[in-house]
C-alpha cells in the first residue's frame, strides 16, 4: 500500500460533507426558477397601475374601477357626508377621516371586505357587506360586523384635480 492509498477519515468526511452541502444547495437553487415561474409575470404586474379620470363622477356617486383585478371604490362625497365623517372616529378600528383621504371630496378605498373578501354594496350610510353583514361608514371604516379592519386605502395620488393614479 503506497502512501497515497492510505485512507484519511477526516479528509473523507470533509469531502462527503462539503459535497453533500454543495449538492443540496445546488438542488435548492435549481428549484428557484420553478417557484419563480409561478409568480405574476411582468405584464401582470404592469396592470397594477390604473389611471382614473374623475370628470363626470357626480357628488354622491360611486365610481368603481378595477385595480389589480380588484374593485376600487371612488366615492365623490357631498359636503354633508364629509362633515359627518370628519366628526366621527369610526368603530372598532378608529381612524380620523383625514388620515383616509387625500382630498376630502374623494374617498378612494379597495372594495374588498376585510373579513373574507366579498364586495360590499353601497348604502346611504356607507357600505353593507352581503356575505356576513359587516357595515362600513362613508369613510370606509368598519362600524359593526365581523370585519376586523377598515376598508384598505390603496396607494394613489392626484395627477391633476380631476385625475388620480392608483398604484
Amino acid at each position, binding site marked *: 500500500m503506497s502512501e497515497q492509498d492510505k485512507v484519511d477519515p477526516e479528509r473523507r468526511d470533509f469531502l462527503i460533507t462539503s459535497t453533500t452541502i454543495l*449538492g443540496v444547495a445546488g438542488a435548492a437553487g435549481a428549484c428557484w*426558477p*420553478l417557484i*419563480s*415561474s*409561478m*409568480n405574476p*409575470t*411582468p*405584464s401582470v404586474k404592469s396592470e397594477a397601475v390604473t389611471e382614473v379620470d374623475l370628470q363626470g363622477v357626480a357628488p354622491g356617486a360611486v365610481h368603481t374601477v378595477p385595480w389589480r383585478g380588484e374593485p376600487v371604490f371612488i366615492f365623490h362625497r357631498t359636503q354633508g357626508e364629509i362633515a359627518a365623517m370628519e366628526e366621527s372616529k369610526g368603530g372598532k378600528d378608529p381612524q380620523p377621516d383625514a388620515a383616509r383621504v387625500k382630498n376630502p371630496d374623494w374617498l378612494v378605498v379597495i372594495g374588498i371586505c376585510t373579513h373574507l373578501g366579498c364586495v360590499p354594496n353601497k348604502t346611504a350610510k356607507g357600505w353593507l357587506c352581503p356575505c356576513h353583514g359587516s357595515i362600513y361608514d362613508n369613510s370606509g371604516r368598519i362600524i359593526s360586523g365581523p370585519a376586523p379592519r377598515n376598508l384598505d386605502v390603496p396607494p394613489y395620488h392626484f395627477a391633476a384635480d380631476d385625475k388620480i393614479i392608483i398604484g
Partner: protein
Amino acid sequence: MTNRVIAWIDQRFPLTSFVKHELTEYPTPRNLSYWWNFGFLAGFVLVLQIVSGIFLAMHYKPDIHLAFDSVQYIMREVNYGWLLRYLHAIGASAFFIVIYIHMARTLYYGSYRAPRELLWWSGQILLLLLMATAFMGYLLPWGQMSYWGAQVITSLFRATPWFGNDLVLWLRGDFTVSDATLNRFFALHYLVPFIIFGMVLIHLVALHAVRSSNPSGINLADKDNIPFHPYFTSKDFYGLGVFLIVLCGFVFFKPDFFLEAINNVPANPMQTPAHIVPEWYFLPFYAILRAIPDTLGGVVAMVMSIMIFAAMPYLDRSKLPGGARFRPLYRLAFYVFIIDVAVLSYVGAHPPSGVLVDVGRVATFVYFATFLLLPPVSILEERWLRARGLPPGLETLVVGEDDKVGAEK
C-alpha cells in the same frame, strides 16, 4: 430519536429492510463500466421532464387560437419560462440520446439474453410510451412543423385495413388535426409520463430480480459483487454531473440546436412547409417508412423496425455467454447496425430524391438483415468459436447456464 422513529416505521412498513435489500446491500457487479450509467440518467431525465412539464402546463393553453401565443408568452413573459421550455424541449432530445445509448449498451453486451427477457420487454414498452409522449408533445407548440408532423403521423393510421379512415377520424376528433386533436394530445401528453413512471418501477422490479448484467456477460460470483450504495450511487451521480454540464451547455448556449426554425411559424392548415422532417430521434424510422413504395407496407415496416428489438432474445441463438466483446461476428453485426441507423437518419433528414432513395432502401434492407440473419449467424459463430477452442472454464459456464434455463422451465 431518529432510531425510535425508524423503529416505529419498521414495525409498520419495511423501510430499513427495503433500503438494505435494494440499496445498501443490493449486489452490483464491480466491473460495470460507464455505459451502465444511462439507466439512472434516463430516470433523472424522466423526473426533469415531468417537473418542467408540470410548471409549463401552468402557463400553456391547449387551444388552437391560444397555443402558439401561450408558448411565446412562456418564452417572453413568464419568469424563467424560457428556461423551463428549453429544459423541456432539449430534455426530450436528451431523453432519446440517453435511451438510445442505454439500448445500444444492452445490445452490445447481450444484456437482453436470458434471464433478462422481461426486463428487456418492459424497456421496449417504455420506448413505445416515450415515443408516443414525444410525438404528442411536439404538437403542443402549434407551429408549422408541429402541425404537419401530427398530420402526417396520424395519417399513417389510414393504412389500417378496413377501418383506416374511421380510425384516423377518431384519433383526430375532426377531419384534420384541429382543436380537438390538440386538446386530447395535451391531455395524453400530461398523462402518459406518469404511466411511464409506473412502468419504470416495473422495469426496476424486474432488474432487481435478475440483477444487472456486466461487461463480461457472465454472472459473477458473490465476491465480485459490491453494494449499490455507496459505490454505484456515487458513480451514477458523477455521471449525472457530466450529463448536466452537457445539458446545460445546450440549454444556455445552444438552445435552438434541436429546434426546427420553421416551427416558429404558427400552424397553417392551408400551407405545408416545403420540407417536412420529424425530430431527429424519429429519423431512422421515418426513412424506413419512406423506403417502402407502398403505404401499408411502409407503415408495417416502420412498426416492425421498432418492435423487432423485442425479438432479440430469440433471434440470438448463441449459447455462449458474453456480449459482443467475445463474439466477433455479433460485434460486426452490431457496428453494421449502428452505422446503418446513422445512414438511415441522414436519409430521413433529406428530401427523397435521386440516389438517396436507393440508399434508403439498401439501408432499410440492411437494418432488417442485421436482425433476421442473426439466428444463423449466431449459430455459425458459436460453432466456429467452439471449433477454435473456448477459453478454459467457459465451457462449464455454458453448460451451467443451459441447466439453469432448463431447471426454470
